[in-house]
Each structure stands twice: as structure tokens, then as C-alpha cells.
């Protein structure tokens, strides 16, 4: 199992460590619900170094990414980050990624479990193009600081300059010879920053953030993958392996906004057809009665008729109710539509809601 540069920091913070996509990662430190609520109310730091970080440079870097991504990368402004899918020829989702476009390079952050597959796919489509694909995952680390207190704290305490960074924008710089990239992005539904640093600098920054030098009570506390999952689920964000996989297309996955059908990319013909015909099933949010939790694979019913399958579910710590995401037949994918979810034989009433059960106040 691989360990991130923050492994010792996790052990020191009493993390409960689990295997995730080949990495030994913190599931939780103090408790999933506590870490979730602290992120919504103050700020948390997450080690997300297991995610793949792939750098592209050379004259054909944009052309390569334009060919493999559903999003129009040529139109992505320098200094901005964009969410995109990568599809196979049948329009199935290979991965969902964030692309950051810099003046002389592009950075792709991909899912840990998909990194080998995505690297192979990129290298296959780079043949004949002048582009260097550099997998920087293991020489760098990535820290996400998330929550309403993040920006003020980072301005006051972190030795990085990020000026007036807009949402989904990034900037890069150097501190004492250490290059960093900081973006205003995240996967929790909160405002926040994601930092990419040399692996060796990770523990310093982690300790700097979680252990204030003046001895005051820390505001940024570590949070693990458990809270990351409940946070993203409340915020209606899809997770590869649950809402997204190769049998699903971006249109059905409610990610049409990250697809530009007017141009040529791998899988576009199929996606144009799905868009024209309308997807047979759609990703929706569900709100369940009671305290029971729907799990991936739980059947969704309309009366006695099966109409779909749950992809993720949890008891939302902030919204205070049982929530889920599910693929359901398009005719019932209407907000407010009552359905039931079969939880190990018990039929629990549910209602179709928005994908995001939680939206932060601006």
C-alpha cells in the first residue's frame, strides 16, 4: 500500500487508516459527523494526495486535452480550473477530472483509482502529437482546506500569495524555493482552497495549519475521507465508482454542463444522440423518510415497479435527514415525485429532490 507524505501526521493525529485505491488513507480522526460539521462551520484540512496529478506541456498539450475531454479546453482561460469528463468512444465515463490551465502547462487532477487507466488512455492519444505527459502524483502532495473560515485563515497564516482568487481559479508561486499551486476549489460544497506542493513540503504546511505557532486553539482541524464523502454527497457532487462509471454517460449523470457537443472529442457522436433522444435514466437526489440510510445498489420503486438504483446514500449531518443519489427512469426524474427505496426488504418512502441537499449561503 502506498503512503502519502502526510502519513506520519495522520498517525500523530490518531487517524483511523484504511486502504483506498491502493493508498493508506485516513478515514477519520475524531468522528465523521464531527469532522463534517466542523468543515461546514469553520474549516478542515484534508490530505487528498492520493488523487492523480498529471502535468502536460508542449505545443500540442491543449489539442490533446481537447480531444479527450468533454469540456472545451481551448476556451478554458489561463489561470482557471475546469471540471470535465473523459469518455470512451461509446460515451461511457472513464474519469471525471479538474483541469487547470497555466500559460505554459496544464495540470489534470484525476481519481486515484483511475490514474493508471487515464495515463494509458492519454499516452495512446498523444501518439503523433508533441506533448509531454508527466505524472507528478508521487513527488507532490495535495491538501484541501475547506470551510467558511478558510480564506481568511489562509490570508492571515499561510506564506502563500493568492490575491483575489475567484472560484475555480488558481495561481502558482514559490515560497523559499518551494513551488506551489493554489486553487479556489474543492469537493465539500464549501468555499476553500486546494494546494499542490512538493511532497517534502506537505508535513510542514499541514503542521503550520493545524498547530498555530502562538499556542492558540487550532481552527483548522484534520478531516478524513469519511467526512469528505458525506460532505460531497450533501452538496450533490458525483463520485467515480458510485454515480459515474464506464456504463454511464455525462448527460445522464447530470453533467451536461461540462460537455461541449459543438466540437469534436472522443465519445461525442454517442453523446449527441443521447442529448437528442433524451437520456433513458437520470441522476437525481432523493430525500428519505426516517433515519435509515440507502446504500449503493438499493432498488428504487414506483409502487411495485422498479424504476432505478441508489448510487450513494448517507444520513446528512448538516441537513439532518437521510439523503441519497440514484439513477431513475426519466419519466419519474421529476422534483417532488414520491418513490420508495427498498432497504433490505423494508420499503422506505422517498421523494425526488435536487441533487444537492445542501447549498452554502454566499
Amino acid at each position, binding site marked *: 500500500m502506498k503512503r502519502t507524505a502526510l502519513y506520519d501526521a495522520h498517525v500523530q493525529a490518531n487517524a483511523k487508516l484504511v486502504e483506498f485505491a491502493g493508498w493508506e488513507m485516513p478515514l477519520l480522526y475524531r*468522528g465523521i459527523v464531527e469532522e463534517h460539521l466542523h468543515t461546514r462551520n469553520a474549516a478542515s484540512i484534508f490530505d487528498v494526495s492520493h488523487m492523480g496529478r498529471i502535468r502536460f506541456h508542449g505545443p500540442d498539450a491543449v489539442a490533446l486535452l481537447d480531444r479527450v475531454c468533454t469540456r472545451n479546453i481551448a476556451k478554458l482561460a489561463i489561470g482557471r480550473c475546469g471540471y470535465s469528463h473523459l469518455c470512451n468512444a461509446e460515451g461511457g465515463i472513464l474519469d471525471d477530472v479538474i483541469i487547470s490551465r497555466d500559460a505554459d502547462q496544464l495540470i489534470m487532477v484525476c481519481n486515484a483509482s483511475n490514474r493508471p487507466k487515464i495515463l494509458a488512455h492519454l499516452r495512446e492519444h498523444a501518439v503523433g502529437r508533441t506533448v509531454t505527459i508527466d505524472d507528478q502524483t508521487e513527488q507532490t502532495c495535495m491538501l484541501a482546506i475547506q470551510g467558511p473560515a478558510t480564506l481568511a485563515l489562509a490570508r492571515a497564516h499561510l506564506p502563500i500569495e493568492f490575491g483575489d482568487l475567484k472560484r475555480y481559479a488558481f495561481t502558482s508561486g514559490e515560497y523559499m524555493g518551494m513551488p506551489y499551486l493554489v486553487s479556489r476549489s474543492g469537493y465539500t460544497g464549501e468555499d476553500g482552497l486546494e494546494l499542490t506542493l512538493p511532497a517534502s513540503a506537505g508535513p510542514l504546511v499541514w503542521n503550520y495549519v493545524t498547530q498555530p505557532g502562538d499556542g492558540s486553539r487550532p481552527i483548522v482541524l484534520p478531516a478524513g475521507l469519511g467526512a469528505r464523502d458525506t460532505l460531497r454527497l450533501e452538496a450533490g457532487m458525483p463520485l467515480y465508482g458510485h454515480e459515474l462509471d464506464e456504463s454511464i454517460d455525462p448527460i445522464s449523470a447530470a453533467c451536461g454542463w461540462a460537455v461541449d457537443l459543438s466540437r469534436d472529442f472522443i465519445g461525442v457522436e454517442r453523446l449527441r444522440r443521447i442529448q437528442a433522444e433524451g437520456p433513458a435514466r437520470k441522476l437525481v437526489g432523493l430525500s428519505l423518510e426516517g*433515519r435509515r*440510510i440507502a446504500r449503493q445498489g438499493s432498488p428504487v420503486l414506483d409502487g411495485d415497479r422498479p424504476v432505478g438504483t441508489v448510487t450513494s446514500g448517507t444520513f446528512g449531518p448538516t441537513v439532518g435527514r437521510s439523503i441519497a443519489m440514484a439513477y431513475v427512469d426519466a419519466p419519474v426524474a421529476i422534483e417532488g415525485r414520491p418513490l420508495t427505496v427498498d432497504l433490505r426488504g423494508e420499503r422506505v418512502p422517498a421523494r425526488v429532490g435536487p441533487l444537492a441537499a445542501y447549498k452554502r449561503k454566499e
Partner: protein
Amino acid sequence: MSVPQDRRYQASHEWHKLDGGEVIIGITQFAADELTDITYVSLPSIGKEIVAGTPFGEIESVKATSDLISGVSGQVVAVNETLNNSPELVNSDPFGQGWMIRVRPTDPTQLDALLTAEQYQRQSAAH
């Protein structure tokens, strides 16, 4: 990790405490910690006959759903109704306020076949 000596255990992490001829059943701290934050406990109704080795209820946490399995057969004489609204008591006090059901056993000697505190501790330490 210490476990109370005054009760018997199962490898599936339920504890059984003999109390005035009846058996109180709950889950151990180890199990509660493994499940993480518990959100829901489904328990049988009073009067129900339960069978040793088969599920009598379910416990859910933000991470997983698990069966609750009794080590003894008998009739349910009380259930911890507090868990309906405060399932987190299983996390905070699994050996006390987080108890689940009280059973009148058909054969109290079934308890003798369960793990002692020492045996259970050795087994869960091996995880």
C-alpha cells in the same frame, strides 16, 4: 482496549449480560468504533421470540449497515427506546446507556458457550 468482565461476548461483537435471570444485549466499543457514527438502530418489538445465531435487528452508521445477532434464544421483554432518537448513545456508551434489548432466555446455559471477556479481547485485538 478494556471490555467489562461481567458479561459474555460473540465474535460478531455483541455483549450479553445476565441480570436477574434475564439477558441484556448490546454491542462492544470495538464494534461501535469500527462502525463509526451510528445513525439508526432497528430493534424487535417486545414479545418477539428471537433465536440464537440469527439476526434480531440492524445497526446503521454513516459507513455501513450490519446485522445484530443474539447469542441466546428467548423472548424480548424490553427494548431501549431511547436509541430511536439518540442512536449515538451506542457510540458514546455502548456498554451502558447504549444497550439494545433485554431477553428472557429459554436456555440460560447458552451463555456459557459464548466468549469470555478475555477471549473476546484476544480475538478483537487480532484484527
